[in-house]
């Protein structure tokens, strides 16, 4: 049981970074995980093409919340192009655990919110994120 989740995941889950809602925001997007109904919202302020500030809000499991918290930390200061290049593998590296196909959707919810929200990729193919 103790090795179920890395300490870092539990830490981000109990103390999520950049939590809240920015208002006004340049980017404001919410997605949900249809399997469990969990929701995640991302608000971001962009200055000179770089992510200046961001905030997450929503509810979900340790994996989805820690993933958002960890991803958010890496985003601040990145250009939108750099953020766009973030892949599934990068998220899994951040989390540092192996996940089955169902939990993978929890882990990648934050990436989906970022990509659909930041790049307006409506109907963005989930298979692309999970490749």
């Amino acid at each position, binding site marked *: *049981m103790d090795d179920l*989740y890395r300490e870092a995941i539990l830490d981000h889950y109990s103390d999520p970074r950049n939590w809240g809602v920015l208002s006004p925001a340049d980017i404001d997007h919410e997605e949900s995980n249809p399997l*469990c*109904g969990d929701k995640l919202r991302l608000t971001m302020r962009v200055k000179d093409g770089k992510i200046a500030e961001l905030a997450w809000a929503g509810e979900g499991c*340790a994996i989805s919340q820690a993933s958002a918290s960890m991803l958010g930390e890496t985003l601040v200061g990145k250009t939108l192009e750099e953020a766009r290049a973030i892949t599934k593998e990068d998220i899994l590296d951040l989390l540092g655990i192996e996940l089955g196909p169902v939990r993978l959707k929890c882990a990648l919810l934050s990436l989906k919110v970022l990509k659909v929200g930041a790049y307006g990729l409506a109907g963005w193919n989930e298979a692309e994120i999970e490749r």
Partner: protein
Amino acid sequence: MVAPSIVSFSAEKIRQDFPILSREVHPGVPLIYLDSGATSQKPLAVLEAEDTFYRQTNANVHRGVHAFSEKATSAYEGARDKVRAFINARSSQEIVFTRNTTESINLVAYAWGLSTLKPGDEIVTTEMEHHSNIVPWQIVAGHMKAVVRFVPITDDGQLDLAAYRKLLESGRVKLVSVSHASNVLGTINPVAEVVAAAHAAGALTVVDAAQSAPHLPLDVQALDADFVAFSGHKMLGPTGIGVLYGKRAVLQEMPPFLGGGSMIKNVTMEGTTFADLPQRYEAGTPAIAQAIGLGAAIDYLNGIGLAAIHEHEVSLVNYALERLEQIPGLTLYGPRTNRVGAVSFTLKGVHPHDIAQGLDSAGIAIRAGHHCAQPLHHRYGLTATARASFYLYNTRDEVDKLVETLEKVRAMFARRG
């Protein structure tokens, strides 16, 4: 058919009939399967029935005059008769094989709804339904400009029957569709009463028996419902086979659902006349081996007896409720009595997915999420719950292991504060 027996019930002995229950989930970690509400495990008798059919008599049904086609047809129709006896229907013509409960309900929604509903007509279902008893009605109501209304539920997970009677007073209710037992709360609904009130208001009735047919003696004549839907895979049978029971008079009035082979009497380029019941509702090659597997599952269940199975589950669920409510921060949903063996709960500060992952590390399979009942979860201000569901092969030791592991999960998250 194996006659019902009164030999003493032994889950330990029953477990030996289920090969998967002796498997390990992770190295050295045996399976504790508490997810029968999602799908049940299968006894050897069911596996062998399908295997034997494919090895020895595989052929299509209702087509050839060759020997194996005759044998396949007899076995398939034999399974239909086992289903008829299992739910005490008057005639095998009232038993339609479908894929599952979802398809059974869709069959009624489309065949009856598209031919009968008028703008402003009302369909009544309830807040505690599985999505399969909500979405088909919404889709068909959308086509016909009809309205779907919901019977609210009480805080302890019972139908609000006073509100239900009020809904019926509109005079526009054409159909009432209700679950016999809730897949989340475990509530056993007073369906005979719901059906009688609907009939008095001139409405047809559908009973979703997906969570009751595997666990309780089911008598469709006593319920008096016009339609009853359930799945084979939740009652020890294979996936891909489900049942729609319909009263003969109602089925005869209804137009077909899917068109194609088997469901016709005569086809010309000008038009088609349809087959008699129940073939009229079984277009295309059916799930033959799966129907035969379901027949074997029914024989197995009859051998133990549904009353004995229910008694075992009640004893197990009472024990589980008693132990679970002692875990600090754990909230139970649903009634304490008159219920089946599905137990949903939340644990303060731990998301249901994390509960499920923690339990999985100890080999315990439960379900986490909204269990295809989002309106029900929203009713309680939740997005997700964790659900343990019990069946004939579960034991008190497994409940102990569940409780012990939940304590560990709680401790792991509590450590972080």
